[in-house]
């Protein structure tokens, strides 16, 4: 098998993004994986030739990073976080259940039954989503708050061709498509999924309920740069619950009147920096 001229051209395109071409090597290796399904000797040679370094130097880099695979990876790379927090919260149990269910071990791939939907299973280190523990990743998309049951359902869905969506992201693409995005060639899924998952928003929602804000600033009558109206915020919010709560807040403010800073506030909205002091009432 030979790499396509398109792939060669795209490898050169990656290298050209940087002041020094070698900086492109990591994304170039992602592209090799996207094109070839793994890091191949031919892919290593192609990178070496383009960058004017030895194949050994490229190999040295390819073997250093865990995302680069020398063996073919399945259509779906399924990762289970077993770093301490996720392990304690259930990641160990999930990983054991999946090994049993898929009848494979760590870093192994299910046999191809002709459907083209194979799974590679791997345990992961911390993937920066600890507030959603136990966490799994499918082709590096978040699958939050998993259990052994939801994990087996997930892999069954992947194998049977059911469309799977990340719990706070887009529809899952294949591993090779994911690697292409990591190489710096975006797909069209950036606008899919929510702004944030529920755990990411607990603090900001608690602040809204309690009318807690950053201090007012002199420059803008107290709004602060990130501030916006409570009603506007709630109407844009993902959950209807937040909306009803903030609207209740707003009406409570209306009955109490506003502070003098509101003189410039012609649209009548309550800005966080101009909130009445409710703390004294508690």
């Amino acid at each position: 098998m030979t790499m396509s001229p398109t792939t060669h051209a795209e490898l050169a395109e990656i290298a050209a993004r940087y002041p020094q071409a070698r900086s492109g090597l990591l994304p170039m290796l992602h592209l090799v994986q996207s094109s070839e399904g793994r890091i191949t000797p031919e892919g290593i040679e192609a990178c070496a030739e383009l960058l004017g370094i030895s194949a050994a130097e490229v190999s040295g880099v390819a073997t250093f990073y865990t995302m680069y695979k020398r063996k073919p990876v399945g259509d779906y790379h399924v990762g289970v976080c077993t770093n301490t927090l996720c392990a304690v919260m259930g990641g160990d149990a999930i990983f054991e259940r999946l090994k049993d269910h898929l009848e494979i071990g760590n870093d192994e791939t299910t046999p191809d039954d002709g459907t083209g939907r194979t799974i590679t299973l791997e345990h992961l280190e911390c993937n920066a989503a600890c507030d959603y523990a136990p966490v799994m990743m499918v082709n590096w998309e978040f699958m939050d708050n998993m259990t052994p049951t939801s994990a087996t359902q997930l892999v069954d869905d992947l194998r049977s061709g059911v469309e799977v969506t990340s719990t706070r992201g887009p529809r899952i693409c294949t591993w090779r498509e994911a690697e292409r995005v990591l190489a710096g060639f975006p797909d069209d899924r950036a606008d899919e999924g929510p702004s944030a998952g529920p755990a990411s928003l607990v603090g900001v929602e608690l602040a809204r309920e309690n009318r807690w804000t950053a201090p007012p600033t002199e420059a803008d009558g107290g709004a602060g740069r990130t501030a916006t109206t409570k009603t506007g915020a709630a109407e844009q919010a993902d959950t209807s619950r937040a909306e009803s709560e903030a609207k209740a807040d707003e009406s409570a403010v209306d009955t109490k009147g506003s502070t003098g800073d509101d003189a410039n506030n012609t649209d009548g909205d309550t800005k966080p920096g101009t909130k009445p002091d409710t703390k004294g009432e508690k």
Partner: protein
Amino acid sequence: MTDVLTPVLTANWGFDRSWTLASYESVGGYRALTKALEMDPAAVIEEVKDSGLRGRGGAGFPTGMKWGFIPQDNPNPKYLVVNADESEPGTCKDVPLMMASPHTLVEGVIISSYAIRANRAFIYVRGEVLHVVRRLQRAVQEAYLAGHLGKNIHGSGYDLDLVVHAGAGAYICGEETALLDSLEGRRGQPRLRPPFPAVAGLYASPTVINNVESIASVPSILANGHAWFASMGTEKSKGFGIFSLSGHVTRPGQYEAPLGITLRELIDLAGGIREGHELKFWTPGGSSTPMLTAEHLDVPLDFEGVGAAGSMLGTRALQIFDETTCVVRAALRWTEFYKHESCGKCTPCREGTWWLVQVLAALEKGQGSEADLDLLLDQCDNIMGRSFCALADGAVSPITSSIKYFREEYLAHLTSGGCPFDPAASTVFATAGANA
């Protein structure tokens, strides 16, 4: 008196399509950039210096001072590199920030690059968070189209190019000099310092490397002034920060508060320890910061307070464990992580973490003797401070701190011939039992 929570960076996370330029500009986004471009770059640095902002990636080095170290008479190009390789176990603040509001970071990058007079900037984001990479790519594309990036930004004559660069899975690349080697297309291994990156960083040129949250804090400082920022927090730890609660609390998640809040307050906000259980141990700032216990609930979570309690503020990654958790299992798992992630450059770290796993794994199975605890501490002593970077120092933290507070629990493994804990009891689906 500031409020209990002070959402600034997190304020827009719940808004509809908050990741888009339109949403970000509707809440005042990119106005700080306009303001900054009207200032002298040196004045921007002064503003950040005066705010007291300290690095949010763990070490707490004053951000403005770091920028001031860039030698402006050096003929080489200057570079800004954002460390978005969030991988420290327990740390989960930068990923949701970049997912929900990538433009906050992009605006911060432009202002910061302008301040240090860099015309090239990079966001080095870990590769294992695909949707974050997508949102960053889209934000950068939108910023170019809107004239916030590229040539002659806002008509100021200032040029900046920004590349989103995905890593490939290596914890060590969160260490700033290893990150630079990785960004140069090499194995991610730390460099000897000095020279510091400010003098010889990327391509041996003057380079500033800052954490995502540090850079994302810059637009609010420019917009609202250094005094506004410094009115939050404590005397030497100014401003707000995102506190990430995970583990055995009722409502894990992100809580943005002034530095100096206590774990007692945060656990209260999070609805308490999960029902029917009590706090056993916690990390203040990721697994590399020595663990603390219930006796430290009232420690102010700022750089000085946590330091005085014998640990480090780190990344405010508060991993909470209740009494169902075996501390030996926790320490062993973290140690296996450091062994896996040691880059292999320095012998004390490469060999030492391997030996730590051997001894700990035996202890966890109830094998060995009490003398092995002293052996472990002796190994830690031979690893700590003897490598190029802080990975090895972090590796010994879980062991030394857990032996300090839970020596009896280690011994219980020996007397009971194995781990006395039921791992099922600590899971989130413990009550569901076999149906989970």
